[in-house]
């Protein structure tokens, strides 16, 4: 877990050093990390595609792979934190679309600057997270049931409200509305790096991973997230604000959904109201491949990012290798299985033995 990383402030000799602890080798420190399985898998997959499809190594291809990874990875950040906190969310896929629809329908219907719609969408996303969290706390039902219910309800709302307001299955175009260009620049532009166009979502994604890692390893809240996922009762008994932390996690997932929703909207100018279904599993898969335990209390934000990167590589790598993309899902399933087995081994190592 977190702690196994040696912090840089270790230089001064402290009370924590003890002659009975053999200096841990870098290797054994690495082997104790939750994301080690994913890292090995990512490197293997990278080498594999580099061999079977040399075009994979071109900077442009890498930028494409990173873009694919970022669209999963942005959500995987929140989903990983939530999973470490012991819960998961099946409504994320459609909640992304709900957010995008809120922004576009509100600004189109009222003829407002799209930034107003963007703010409304943020509130909607956070509210969805809050409601998921509060229902979970109040009913004490498992998150599987609670978020399955909100998945179904949001699916219905997305379709129903879009048709009722815009009169079609897709939201009306907002391309000519005020604020569209600036919003597109923020959520769906590209950055030119050495002649290669890299999508802005890649940078947003990396920034979010860094912030999430910081929160997880270096703040009180991070400590609480691990604790409520590891043993909720114990956490409550020592005074951890379990309810606040859990609801906060669902709202963080909502925030990630907003970021991705805004990208989806401004990458084009309208949203298909039936989209998003099934994507929730991709985010969960990225988190699990990245070493987050389904049972909670163990994992990392970096792991979720590596999981998303694996997803991006497999997704695009198959295309570069000129294989039939039908095989992609098979790949994904196999990887998930392997990753879960590796996770169990890593967790056992962390729990017992030295």
């Amino acid at each position: 877990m977190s702690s196994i990383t040696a912090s840089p402030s270790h230089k001064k000799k402290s009370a924590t050093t003890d002659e009975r602890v053999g200096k841990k080798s870098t290797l054994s420190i690495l082997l104790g990390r939750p994301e080690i399985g994913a890292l090995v898998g990512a490197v293997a997959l990278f080498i594999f595609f580099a061999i079977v499809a040399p075009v994979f190594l071109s900077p442009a291809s890498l930028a494409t792979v990173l873009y694919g990874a970022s669209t999963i990875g942005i959500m995987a950040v929140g989903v990983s934190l939530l999973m470490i906190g012991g819960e998961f969310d099946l409504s994320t896929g459609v909640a992304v679309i709900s957010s995008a629809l809120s922004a576009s329908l509100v600004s189109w219907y009222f003829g407002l600057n799209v930034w107003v719609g963007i703010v409304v969408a943020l509130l909607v996303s956070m509210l969805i997270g809050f409601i998921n969290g509060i229902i979970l706390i109040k009913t004490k039902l498992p998150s599987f049931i609670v978020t399955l219910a909100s998945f179904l309800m949001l699916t219905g709302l997305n379709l129903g409200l879009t048709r009722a307001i815009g009169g079609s299955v897709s939201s009306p175009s907002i391309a000519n509305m005020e604020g569209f260009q600036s919003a597109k620049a923020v959520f769906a532009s590209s950055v030119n790096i050495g002649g290669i166009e890299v999508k802005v979502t890649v940078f947003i994604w990396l920034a979010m991973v860094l912030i999430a890692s910081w929160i997880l390893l270096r703040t009180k809240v991070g400590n609480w997230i691990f604790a409520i996922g590891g043993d909720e009762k114990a956490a409550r008994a020592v005074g951890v604000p379990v309810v606040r932390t859990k609801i906060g996690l669902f709202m963080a997932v909502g925030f990630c959904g907003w970021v991705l929703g805004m990208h989806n909207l401004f990458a084009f100018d309208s949203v298909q109201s039936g989209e998003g279904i099934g994507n929730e599993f991709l985010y969960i898969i990225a988190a699990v491949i990245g070493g987050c335990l389904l049972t909670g209390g163990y994992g990392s934000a970096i792991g979720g990012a590596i999981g998303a990167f694996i997803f991006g590589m497999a997704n695009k790598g198959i295309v570069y290798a000129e294989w039939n993309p039908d095989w992609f899902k098979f790949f994904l399933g196999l990887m998930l299985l392997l990753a879960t087995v590796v996770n169990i081994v890593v967790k056992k190592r962390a729990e017992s033995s030295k």
Partner: protein
Amino acid sequence: MKTRKNKKTEELLEKLEPKTSDNLLTFKGVGKHYGSIIALRDVDMVVDPGKVTCVLGDNGAGKSTLIKIIAGLHQHDEGEFMLHGSAIKLKSPRVALDAGIAAVYQDLAVVPLMPIWRNFFLGSELTTGVGPFKKLDVQKMKDITKQELSDMGIDLRDVEQPIGQLSGGERQCVAIARAVYFGAKVLILDEPTAALGVKQSGVVLRYILQARDRGLGVIFITHNPHHAYPVGDSFLLLKRGRSIGYYSKSEITVGELTAQMAGGAELAELAHELEQLGGHDEELSEAEAGATSQTTA
């Protein structure tokens, strides 16, 4: 039988009455039910600083219920629970902790996969910096954890290791050291020795005494009178949710305590059965002795 006990309790409470405000905790006729199940009724008890109050009883006697009331996990429905002489109801463990009441639970309030130092400071983390850049003071927390544990005589190799790797006794000790460090005035231990071997139990008992010597009021819950008697100053006996006796150490011997716990009537019955069977002289005299000491206690 019932009147005798009530009288005894009254006497004890009377003795303690004049200095009620010096008592850390006072229980008067406290009761608690879960729906229609009466888990606890009519319990009187006093906890003093620098003293160990033992709560004894069989499984299901209501011991855990009692401490959950003190620790703020549940609230009592009847009677009075007083802290420093004023009646209170603790709404949450956080409130109890802030009032100086720390509990170490049977099912251990630690998160196994988290490092020892993170567990030690869980819920009361130290931070440096301000605003959004406020971060955990990792090095300081590690140093304090190591120091506090070694002050308690617990010599751990590495505070980075997940607490799940420690033995049951060591985990209890970390939890006790944590309570002491965070300035607990009342330390509650729910069956800390139940799952431990003889040697480990001895170690935990030693930490109970250390906590007592530092001036904490310790509530030690156990079903083993041989663990309770050597460290205890007063003894509350629970049976099926009722108090069946409250004694100070001078009033009772370890044999009487055992007999009380086993229940005089049951022992008398056992003696009777053994007598009828014949040929178990030694066991018979033991059971009889137990039954007698019960009635004379």
